[in-house]
């Protein structure tokens, strides 16, 4: 591979700055006292604390899973601080009261929090370290009966909804990281779309880890009531730091009968430097439960993090439910990603589609891990899986681990896989038409990812495409 292509993948991480802000942080360490302290700071009701404590006790009996195809140094859970909030964070009367430094941070990230300046038709919830610092377009959404607020606020103001659905898709006992999250989660977003309502705008949350040596454990719960529709986008960035930071989030989606939930992620946590120092350890549990005739669609563009461990899944509970997973995962330098999905067919005539595009550059290692499970009652279940890998250079790796388990013989499960290499000939062909090497690589890669990009909301498709160009710049080797 020509040295020229090698230059194309190592551009600076432009979101790597940090904000100097006074924080209310708990000292490092994890014990029952810490769980209680978090709950107390958030003035939570008793039932919420009880739930956290159950999760914590469960977590203590669990061990960190090591079946994924990633290597990382042992995480010292006692060295992490589990809560950090900007000191000024008290309930805000309006977004104008937001600390200017925080507002400035989001401006630099290209996420203006002034409602009038916002992208038309996108409501934003901004989560800074452990807490939500502001949600836009709240009033407008209220008019349609849509609830979009921070998780903390939802616990206070809509306890009946939270109690009903929290843990209904990802129980606190689900896995090690989900249990940890359930014990110490500090904030996140909550969405409820009432029966028959089509949410009038895209909803999005931007997560920002700022404080050093702090873990981020947010929790998102989205409930679309019968016949409702919502499209939600999550974006993430973090400062460049030389030590690893832990991010263990949980996302639960509930699509009641005939509802549609579309969840898109553009994940760009700091990935560490060229030598593999620093970066976010991203251990995330995302799952949706789709009831009769409903549809849950995950689209993810994963370009950041030192380690990604994430399998957005759908339990196709009701008859005629549909689950989709569209993924682009890019690894460069020393990044490692083990990502994929689970489609669990429970109901009859359920249908799932999986399209996974893995791109590996530098010394990156990319694994697709997918499970398709058809339970005995899921007559006429259908799954189509397409899993493509692209290699840029000779030192990276791509691995595919498909698991298929069919317990109903009327099911049809199809799997296609391919591996390709960006060839010098493709790049030369583009250059011979006047395009630069950078344009060539980004064009070839975007072409490879096209089926996934077309699933992203329009406003973000471009962003994702640009992000991909940045991530791959200087990468081939």
């Amino acid at each position, binding site marked *: 591979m020509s040295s*020229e292509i090698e230059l194309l993948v190592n551009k600076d991480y432009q979101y790597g700055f940090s904000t100097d802000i006074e924080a209310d942080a708990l000292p490092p360490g994890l014990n029952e006292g810490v769980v209680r302290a978090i709950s107390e700071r958030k003035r939570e009701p008793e039932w919420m604390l009880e739930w956290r404590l159950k999760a914590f006790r469960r977590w203590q009996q669990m061990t960190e899973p090591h079946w994924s195809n990633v290597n990382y140094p042992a995480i010292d859970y006692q060295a992490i601080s589990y809560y950090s909030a900007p000191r000024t964070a008290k309930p805000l009367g309006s977004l104008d009261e937001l600390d200017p430094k925080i507002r400035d941070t989001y401006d630099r990230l290209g996420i203006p929090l002034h409602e009038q300046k916002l992208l038309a038709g996108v409501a934003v919830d901004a989560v800074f370290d452990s807490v939500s610092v502001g949600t836009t377009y709240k009033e407008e959404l209220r008019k349609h009966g849509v609830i979009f607020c921070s998780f903390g606020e939802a616990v206070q103001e809509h306890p009946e909804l939270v109690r009903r659905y929290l843990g209904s898709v990802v129980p606190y006992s689900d896995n090690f990281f989900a249990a940890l999250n359930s014990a110490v989660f500090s904030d996140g977003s909550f969405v409820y779309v009432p029966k028959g309502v089509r949410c009038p705008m895209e909803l999005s949350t931007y997560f920002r880890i700022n404080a050093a040596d702090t873990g981020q454990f947010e929790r998102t719960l989205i409930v679309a009531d019968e016949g409702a529709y919502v499209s939600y986008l999550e974006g993430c960035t973090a400062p460049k730091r030389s030590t690893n930071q832990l991010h263990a989030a949980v996302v639960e989606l509930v699509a009641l009968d005939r509802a549609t939930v579309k969840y898109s992620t553009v994940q760009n946590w700091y990935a560490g430097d060229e030598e593999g120092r620093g970066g976010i350890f991203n251990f995330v549990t995302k799952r949706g439960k789709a009831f009769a005739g409903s549809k849950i669609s995950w689209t993810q563009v994963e370009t950041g993090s030192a380690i990604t461990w994430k399998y957005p899944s759908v339990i196709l509970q009701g008859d005629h439910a549909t689950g989709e997973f569209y993924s682009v995962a890019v690894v460069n330098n020393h990044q490692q990603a083990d990502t994929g999905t689970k489609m669990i067919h429970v109901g009859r005539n359920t249908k799932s589609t999986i399209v996974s595009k893995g791109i590996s550059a530098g010394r990156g290692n990319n694994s697709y891990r997918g499970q398709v499970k058809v339970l005995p009652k899921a007559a006429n279940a259908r799954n189509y899986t397409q899993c493509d890998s692209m290699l840029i250079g000779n030192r990276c790796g791509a691995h595919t681990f498909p698991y298929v388990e069919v317990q109903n013989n009327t099911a049809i499960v199809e799997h296609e896989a391919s591996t390709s290499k960006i060839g*010098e000939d493709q790049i030369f062909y583009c*250059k*011979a*038409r*006047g395009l630069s090497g950078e344009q060539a690589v980004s*064009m070839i890669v975007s*072409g490879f*990812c096209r089926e996934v990009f077309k699933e992203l909301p329009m406003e973000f498709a471009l962003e994702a495409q640009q992000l991909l160009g940045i991530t791959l710049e200087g990468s081939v080797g």
Partner: protein
Amino acid sequence: MIHISELHASVGEKEILKGISLEIAAGEIHAIMGPNGSGKSTLAQVLAGHPGYEVTAGTVTYNGQDLLAMDPEERAQAGVFLAFQYPVEIPGVSNAYFLRSAYNEIRKARGEAEADPLEFLDIVSERLKLVDLDEAMLNRSVNAGFSGGEKKRNEILQLAVLDPRFAILDETDSGLDIDALRIVADGVNRLRRKDNAFLVVTHYQRLLNYIVPDRVHVLVDGRIARSGGKELALELEERGYDWVTAEPVAGV
């Protein structure tokens, strides 16, 4: 237009071009013929700047510029075009997007304004007629799943849209049916002007009935073994290549 002098090029240890000298003036069409493996495509790729070939000696001057010192994209922006013998597939990238990006890069290099998608559509629709291609072609991925002949015609569409000063056609006629051959040749003839030049690599005298060359060169084992007028192509058709190598090398 272009002046090639004593050009040597190799891949690894193997020398493929062993001293090629050739001069093509604006307004001219030259044809290159020669047996398989004689170095025709290598010459074409070296002129376009393929990084896999190392130029070990010689010079190439293009409109007064040192062509060999330029990056491939700079050459393209300066008006050099290679229609590939084996066009490359780029899945997922639409032909229209690819062409417009290339078109705009070349415009930018010339200090001209870029064309937006609508303006470009006008330009391209007119050019499509020239090569008798269907508009549906634009929405397909670059060369992906194209038949051999479609790929070649797509190269000619690119040629027509990018409007180069110096175009090299590497066996664009191979794999074309008779009708397509005529369309491609007509396209070239229509694009032919006083201020541009063509270098046409072919195995078939037939093509040269349609595209009438000013000069014909025979490449054998990395050298130009013989040059002549358009009659030379006919002679080769009749007698094959053996007699060329047997007789003394003619001047260019």
